């Protein structure tokens, strides 16, 4: 083993900066013995900002970004195996994760302080989760994917149960924990099978062996490899909340503290999607003819089940959870069409979706505590709320029902406008970033010969308009019930402003689309036989011109 050289360590610097900020936050609280909210926010934002600066620098790296290599090169066929590679795809995903983390720190800080919980601990654990997600986004090796997934999952289990004494939170955390551990087991077993089939866990090397010119994989190797891919899909599918691995998501989204729900919806999905892109196209791109129909079917089921279930939800957080499941289906459509610009579409869509979800959950997080006098509305959602009566509630109740939004257009016009813009972007209405994202996915699917998939996508979008527009009606058409006007902290409203401006600016400037297109050029196998794609069209696609994985150092 050669010790990692300094330039190699620079690759992990974004994640290290975030971890350093987390440690500093904990230290400050321990030394001062009291919570200084501004200092904690400042340190966290400095760490996240520094990391974002480093990520932005590597946006130009294309597919050949710097990497951390594992030692013992001889065993893996002469070439050193990359563990983490800071390419443009990692940078784009990383920036999204960092924005989501900054948002969660700002919005969550007020939420946590109102409940008398420790803000420093909250902030530190959010930062640890973000660091794990950054590593997952940059992972170039299956073992690194497993480590990244676990690093952020364990932090999220803690965050779900962060309100002490709160049964809904504990229950959400336990459900997330049990199913998440199950998923981790599948992920690790998949890794072991792929390792058994190819003798390597490095994604590019696996891709080379399973399909490359010098690979010459036997049928047996391909079978074991595909079995491994199935297990990896199950593991990552849990994290992305794809149907049929979605059963944890509604309960967890509903029971977790609202800022954390937004963080999970935006950042977890981004990190898991980037990892899935790499697994599917870097490691298994050569076998795409085999798995593409299965993944396409997964996308259809996820879209349809997510949207249908979202329609019947009375609880807003649950509704947004099912909508998040449906949105994962849209992203999966883009991954299927990765040969025709789908990755850029997926990245842009994740940006639009993430900002909208953060904004929507951010508004809900700021509204909490306003529903105290309306416990009856929540009785339908938390059936045994009365049973918890002997234990003092850990602070104000979360705003989760449609009735909590009643008349918001009059009492809080600014929050109502934010919520409206976010929901409209989630539907994909034309002036919003969500529209452009959906249009890019649609176009890539049509170009890739997945016409029927594109049609299912459009039908589902129409279906989703029904439940996304209902809260808007409640905000503007229904009389307000309470007279309490929520207090909105400056940091939180700043974060919401950023989200809304992002949603608008993302559409106005073509720059983000260009950046997403550039991030498309990651290290992947050209697909051998894209479904229904005439060969002359195939040569014009980005995938056909992408650098073959074999040229990686």
């Amino acid at each position, binding site marked *: 083993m050669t010790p990692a050289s300094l330039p190699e360590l620079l690759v992990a610097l974004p994640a290290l900066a975030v971890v350093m900020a987390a440690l500093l936050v904990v230290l400050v609280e321990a030394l001062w013995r009291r919570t200084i909210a501004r200092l904690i926010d400042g340190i966290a934002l400095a760490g996240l900002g520094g990391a974002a600066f480093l990520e932005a620098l590597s946006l130009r790296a294309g597919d050949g970004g710097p990497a951390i290599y*594992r030692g*013992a090169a001889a*065993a*893996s*066929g002469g070439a050193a195996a990359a563990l983490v590679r800071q390419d443009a795809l990692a940078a784009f995903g990383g920036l999204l994760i960092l924005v989501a983390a900054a948002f969660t720190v700002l919005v969550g800080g007020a939420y946590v302080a109102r409940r008398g919980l420790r803000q420093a601990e909250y902030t530190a654990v959010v930062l640890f989760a973000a660091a794990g997600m950054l590593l997952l986004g940059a992972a170039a090796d299956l*073992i690194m994917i*497993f*480590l990244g997934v*676990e690093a952020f999952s*364990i932090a999220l*289990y*803690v965050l779900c*149960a962060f309100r*002490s*004494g709160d*049964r*809904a939170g*504990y*229950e*959400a*955390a*336990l*459900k997330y*924990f*049990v199913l998440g*551990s*199950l998923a*981790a*087991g599948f992920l*690790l*077993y998949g*890794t*072991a*099978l792929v*390792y*058994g*089939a*190819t*003798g*390597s*866990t490095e994604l590019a090397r696996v891709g080379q*062996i399973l399909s490359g010119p010098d690979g010459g*994989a*036997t049928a*047996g*190797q391909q079978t*074991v490899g595909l079995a491994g891919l199935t297990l990896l899909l199950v593991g990552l599918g849990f994290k992305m909340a794809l149907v049929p691995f979605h059963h944890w998501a*509604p*309960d967890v989204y*509903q*029971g977790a503290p609202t800022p954390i729900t937004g963080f999970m919806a935006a950042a977890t999905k981004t990190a898991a999607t980037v990892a899935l892109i790499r697994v599917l196209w870097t490691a298994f791109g050569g076998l795409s003819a085999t798995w593409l129909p299965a993944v396409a079917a997964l996308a259809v089921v996820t879209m349809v089940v997510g949207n249908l279930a979202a329609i019947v*939800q*009375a*609880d807003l957080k*649950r509704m947004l959870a099912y909508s998040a499941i449906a949105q994962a289906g849209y992203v999966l459509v883009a991954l299927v069409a990765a040969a025709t610009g789908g990755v850029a579409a997926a990245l842009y869509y994740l940006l639009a979706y993430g900002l909208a979800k953060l904004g929507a959950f951010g508004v809900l997080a700021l509204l909490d505590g306003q529903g105290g006098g309306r416990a009856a509305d929540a009785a339908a959602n*938390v*059936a*045994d709320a009365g049973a*918890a009566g002997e*234990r003092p509630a850990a602070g104000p109740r979360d705003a989760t029902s449609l009735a909590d939004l009643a008349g918001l257009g009059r009492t809080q016009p600014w929050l109502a406008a934010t919520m409206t813009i976010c929901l409209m972007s989630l539907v994909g209405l034309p002036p919003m970033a969500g529209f452009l994202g959906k249009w890019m996915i649609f176009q890539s699917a049509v170009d890739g010969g997945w016409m029927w998939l594109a049609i299912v996508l459009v039908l589902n979008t129409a279906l989703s308009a029904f439940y996304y527009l209902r809260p808007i009606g409640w905000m503007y058409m229904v009389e307000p019930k309470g007279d309490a006007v929520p207090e909105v902290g400056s940091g939180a409203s700043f974060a919401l402003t950023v989200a809304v401006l992002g949603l608008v600016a993302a559409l106005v400037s073509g720059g983000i689309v260009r950046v997403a297109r550039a991030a498309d050029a990651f290290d992947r196998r050209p697909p051998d036989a894209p479904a229904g794609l005439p060969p002359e069209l195939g040569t014009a696609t980005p995938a056909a011109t992408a650098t073959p994985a074999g040229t990686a150092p």
Partner: protein
Amino acid sequence: MIPLAAVLPPAQPLMLAALLFTIGAAGVLLRRNIIIVLMSVELMLNAVNITLVAVSRAMLQLDGQVFVFFSLTIAAAEVAVGLALVVALHRSLGSSDVDDVSSLRG
């Protein structure tokens, strides 16, 4: 690099691992006591460890055996958080049965 197809590792450890993994997964899904569920998760991860070691030995590499250390570390961290959750839930609920943890639904 010696792939699996060239030098098949002894089938027995792989079969044993697959069996243990299945038992573990079934335990997570079927058992009702949270502590037993946690033990089943550990069984799944350890089954994978057996696979990794068997494959790694058959290929005359050390990588797989190093991965086992990663997996053990993760499993320890996971179970620490898991047990803390079980304790918190038991204090607030007075039960460690999965079926009692069902207030969130819709």
